[in-house]
Structure formats: C-alpha cells, structure tokens
C-alpha cells in the first residue's frame, strides 16, 4: 500500500522588493555622466535632468508641476514677472539672478521651491522606463544653477521616495489613473492638506492634474492620494467594462446575476488590493 502524501500548497507569489535597491543606482547612464562631470541634458521617457559638471541643476517632468506653477499658483510671483525673467534670460544673465536681483523673490523662497521641484521632477524622470535615455552634451538650462545637487543624492532620494509610497499603500494604480471617491460608512478624519486633494477627486482628474491645480509638488500629492487610498476614501477609477460581454455570457447560463455581481473586474481589483496589503504587512 502506498502512502498518499498531500501536496504542499504552492508558495504565494511575492514581488522581489529588494531588486531595485540591490542594483545600486536607478540609471547607469546617469552614474557614468556624474563620474565624467558632464554638462548637458538627460532626456528620459518621463522627464529630463539638466546636469552641470556632473551635478543636477534642474529637472522637469510632464507629470510634475514646474517651478513656474509652484511660484505662481498662490501668487508668490505673478505670472508676468516670471515670463519677463524667462524672456530676458540669455547667455550672460540667468533667470534666477534676474528674479532675485529684481527683488521679486527671496533667495530662500526660490531655493526652497527650486529644490522641491527638482527632486519632484527627478522622481518621475528616473522612474523605470521602456525606452533608453539620451544625453545631449553642452545644453544648459536658462534658469541657471540655483542649488546644484549631487547625482547620488537625487538617485538615493528617488529610491527612498519609492519605498515611502510603497509603505503607505502598495498599489501604484492610484498614481496615474483618474481618481474617484469611495463611499464609506464611517469615514476617518482627513488632515487639511489631504482634504484639499480629496476635494478635487472627481472621477476625471489624476494625481498629476490635482498637483498642478494645487500648485503642489506631484510627489506630495501622491503621498496624500496613497494615504487616502489606504484609508479607503479614494480609488483609481476602473475602466468601464463592456456591458454587452458580461450580460451575453450570463445569458448563456440562464442565471440572472444579482446587481452587485454583474461585473467581474472590480472584484479582481479588490483582490489585488487585498493581496498587496497582505504583502506589505
């Protein structure tokens, strides 16, 4: 008689979270450019980094509000003063000097906004990309060097920010999808800076749209969105499923599905969130 042993259940899939940090830098090309003290602009899929002698002097991304948005959104600087400095900037006069010399802006305010915008855009520019980056030697930014930052510091901060978001709420779907509010029976109290974000969630706007409207760094908006998602108040809008496909399938079985079970997609999304939350424990 043979013994029949039970097969152990398969191991649950767990993502290799350490893979990103073990490989060192986020972009080997950027590390090399820093080592050779290159000056120019690195163009990647989700943004660009401006380097001067191997240090990051500026960063831009379509996903992050620019320095102009942050400075003008709440009237710190009026849009005309900004445009004036941009127009007058040339080889000998950087825009940052023009803004400061005109007394329109305190140096601390400019540095604060600039550093904040730099790390913010770099977070998106250094996101994993599907296409290779390109470097154009010699190109400089018209803003000048407000506060150059070592490449290693920018890469390190980008990785730290990724893990910070992951710790708050591990599902990245809410970072880029249109957001919608979720009705909860007992909604937890929302901090003022988060409620400004929550107030703009309307099923159409994405986190990047909300960041631009608030004149707030996009990463700060992502932190708020992930915290709201963790609290169950906000969810990425699931694309509408083709109603015909689901009903035709059910019609074949001859069983009428209750209203709440008509589509399968939200259940998969929910299961995914539960899995991610368990993984994060």
């Amino acid at each position, binding site marked *: 008689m043979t013994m029949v042993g039970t097969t152990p259940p398969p191991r649950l899939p767990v993502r290799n979270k350490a893979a990103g940090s073990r490989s060192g830098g986020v972009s080997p090309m950027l590390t090399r450019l820093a080592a050779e003290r290159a000056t120019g602009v690195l163009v990647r899929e989700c943004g660009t980094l401006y380097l001067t002698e191997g240090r990051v002097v500026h960063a831009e991304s379509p996903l992050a509000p620019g320095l102009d948005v*942050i*400075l003008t*959104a*709440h*009237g*710190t600087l009026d849009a005309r003063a900004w445009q004036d400095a941009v127009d007058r900037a040339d080889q000998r006069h950087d825009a940052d000097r023009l803004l*400061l010399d005109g*007394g329109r*802006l*305190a*140096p*601390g*305010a400019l*540095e*604060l*906004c600039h*550093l*904040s915008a730099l*790390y913010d855009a770099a977070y998106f520019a250094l996101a994993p990309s599907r296409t290779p980056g390109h470097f154009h030697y010699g190109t400089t930014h018209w803003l000048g060097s407000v*506060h150059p930052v070592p490449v290693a510091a920018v890469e390190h*901060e980008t990785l*730290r*920010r990724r893990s*910070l978001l992951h710790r708050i709420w591990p599902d990245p779907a809410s970072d880029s999808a249109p957001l919608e509010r979720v009705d909860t029976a007992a909604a937890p*109290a929302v*901090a*003022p*800076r988060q409620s400004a974000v929550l107030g703009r969630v309307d099923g159409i706007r994405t986190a990047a749209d909300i960041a631009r409207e*608030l*004149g*707030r*760094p996009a*990463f*700060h908006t992502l*932190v708020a969105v992930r915290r709201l998602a963790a609290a169950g108040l906000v969810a990425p809008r699931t694309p509408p499923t083709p109603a015909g496909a689901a009903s035709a399938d059910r019609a074949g079985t001859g069983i009428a599905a209750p209203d709440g079970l008509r589509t399968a997609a939200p259940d998969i999304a929910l299961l995914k969130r539960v899995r991610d939350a368990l993984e994060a424990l």
Partner: protein
Amino acid sequence: MPGIDECLLEAMRLPGARGAALVDWTSGLALGTVGEPPGGDHETAAAEAAELARLAAEQRAFAPDDGEEAADPPVEDLILSNRDSYHVLRFVRTSFDSSVFLHLWLARADGNLALARIRLGEMAGRLVLG
C-alpha cells in the same frame, strides 16, 4: 537676504546649537543640514523629525481654538526635551504650497530655549520673505 545654508548657519550661531536642518515633512527630505546630526545620521534624523512634525501639524487637538480660520499648518513650533538636549521644530509659513520646518538641536547645558524659539521664528520668516 539669506538662502537655506545662510539661514542654517545663522541658527548654528545660537548658544548651545549642535545641529540644524531644513526638512520637508511630507517627503522626509532634508533640504539642508549643518552641524552634527542628532542620532548620528542627518537623513534618518530628518525622516524621524518629519514624522513628528506631520503628526503635530495634522491633529485637530493641537490647532488654535479661537474660532478664526487656522493657518497651514496650524502649529507654530514643537519643543522636545531630553536629559541632555532640546529640539525645536519651527514650521515655515510660505506663500507657496510647501511643508517645511526648521529643526534646531540644542545642548541643554548651554542652550537658551526661549531665545532659540524666538530667533528660529524670525529666521523662518526671513528665509522665505527676504
């Protein structure tokens, strides 16, 4: 008209100052640091101080109760003491959207908490207003 580094160096001239930093409390990033890091590492100190600042800034219990609309953040500063030192966290009010504070670490034997608190408030104002 000080920049970030000048502002932090000014804070270091206060009696008993051991270290100072300008920290963003949403991301936990230190935008500038001078002097010794509390706990041995500026990055960790910034992240830990950011957690404390965020809690203080977000809890309704610590907001003023005078009926007027609360500023953002509603808290002005945080004072923390231990056997050998003081920590003063001063929120920086800006006309743009931000979440930063000045963190000053003072030796308890030489530090003057009242003076540090007043000076740090003035520095926070000058940093962004010129």
